[in-house]
């Protein structure tokens, strides 16, 4: 068995809303799981179960209240993402960890192909990155004439594919996906799943929030079920009656 790339233990997240009289909302309670290199863990559960908060804690967009999230870096050292300093987290985000939000957020007036390419440009190699970006968008069914338009005018499904392309253009060791296929029809969903399958085959580990059975069956090695911020069940898709927690078969 390989050493896990990420080991989450006793993870708690409580949101304290000072502007509402210090109202406290427990979003995650004692969450734990491991993910190995090249594995895909599907996070499932109802709305408000803490799925997005879990992903955001790993990305450190949310500050965990307590617990540890040990990440094994490419060089083999262990970094606790819960307590790592901001600059270390930024470095990992640039090189090893990618987070894909549910909705595309991009600078205005930037063509789709540049939205995908820009984060990956180093040392001014814009042209080659742009060619790769264009190829990836084409493989996701975004036509070339659309690629030079601004994503703000795209449909929800097109925006989501731009978002996924931006995240997957260059290999990352850990990919965090918040419902990567929620706005896609079956055909486009399969294109995204092809890309994710390739990424996983290339050694990337994937933690993805999923809502539909076909996605889960194609991609997930393990399933983590959350309810009210707690781990309700964990195991292989065969061990867990996933249909109980996600939408039924098509």
């Amino acid at each position, binding site marked *: 068995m390989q050493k896990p790339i990420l080991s989450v233990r006793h993870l708690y997240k409580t949101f304290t809303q000072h502007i509402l009289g210090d109202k406290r909302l427990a979003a995650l309670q004692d969450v734990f799981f491991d993910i190995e290199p090249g594995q895909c863990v599907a996070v499932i559960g109802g709305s408000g179960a803490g799925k997005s908060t879990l992903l955001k804690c790993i990305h*450190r967009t949310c500050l965990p209240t307590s617990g540890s999230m040990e990440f094994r870096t490419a060089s083999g050292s262990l970094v606790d993402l819960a307590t790592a300093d901001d600059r270390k987290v930024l470095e990992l985000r640039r090189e090893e960890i990618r987070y894909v939000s549910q909705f595309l957020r991009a600078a205005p007036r930037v063509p789709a192909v540049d939205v995908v390419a820009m984060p990956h440009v180093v040392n001014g190699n814009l042209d080659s990155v742009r060619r790769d970006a264009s190829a990836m968008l084409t493989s996701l069914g975004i036509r070339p004439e659309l690629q030079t338009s601004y994503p703000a005018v795209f449909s929800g499904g097109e925006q989501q594919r731009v978002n996924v392309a931006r995240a997957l253009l260059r290999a990352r060791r850990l990919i965090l996906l918040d419902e990567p296929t929620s706005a896609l029809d079956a055909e486009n969903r399969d294109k995204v799943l092809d890309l994710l399958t390739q990424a996983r085959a290339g050694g990337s580990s994937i933690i993805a929030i999923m809502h539909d059975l076909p996605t889960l069956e194609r991609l997930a090695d393990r399933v983590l079920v959350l309810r009210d911020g707690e781990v309700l069940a964990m195991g292989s898709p065969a061990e867990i009656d996933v249909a109980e927690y996600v939408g039924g078969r098509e």
Partner: protein
Amino acid sequence: MLENRETEFPLLSVKEVTKTYGPGCPGRDTAGCLLACDSDPGTNSCAACGSIVACRDVSLDIYPGETVGILGESGSGKSTLLRCLYLDETPTSGYANFNPVGECRNLFSVDRALRRHIRSSLVGIVYQEARRGLNLLVTAGGNVAERLLAAEWRSVSDIRGKASDYLSRTEVPLDRMDDFPVYFSSGMQQRVQIAKALSNSPDLVLLDEPTTGLDVSVQAGVLDLIRDIKREYGITILVVSHDLPVIGMLADRTIVMRHGRVIEAGLTDQILEDPQHPYTQLLASSAL
């Protein structure tokens, strides 16, 4: 000047900078005002003597190639801090170690010659009001040339070429290069100011509300330009804004100021999505 992400040393290390205006409390030095109050006192004017504490014990590190944002309401001390760092103002106490290649110094104790060199060559500033950063009675091209001359450029054709390059990058029409900025719209003045500040590729650029008061299309253009130049030259940026999306788009890390104090610091997305301090929560939840 490529981004060196592994650099251990900050380009600028600001330590406990305090700036007060006013007489100060009797029996104490000026920095003594409000000193008894270590947490946020809810105001920045001293109840005893009426002095204004614009910045109080502000510390931050900026590493080469990164963009740090300062978020805060008007009167929180953001601009005062920037003006101290550009040596427009002398802080009451504290120091700022500035470390461009091979010469680490406290900015606040440099002699006049070095102060001039820092302001003309090493640090650039874009003020909120364009007229602070521009000479409105010198042509747009002349404004950029002034800065290049101060940074010891000598060839007239080089200067002219650089000025037209940067003005065109900031979308200032070149046929207006020889017009006076006093006749420009405020958006265009702001773009001339940005061209001027960036023209000699300074190590550190201070941006004070670079897009405030601009209409949205010009704002998007200015943000594009800042991002392009950052990507191209790997410059280090300290950007002040009260506008959350502007900070969100430009800054890697952000500090939040209120009543002259740093009340929160963190990754920009964390500050915007999971703010910890009551005031930052108010800011984040009030954004449209």
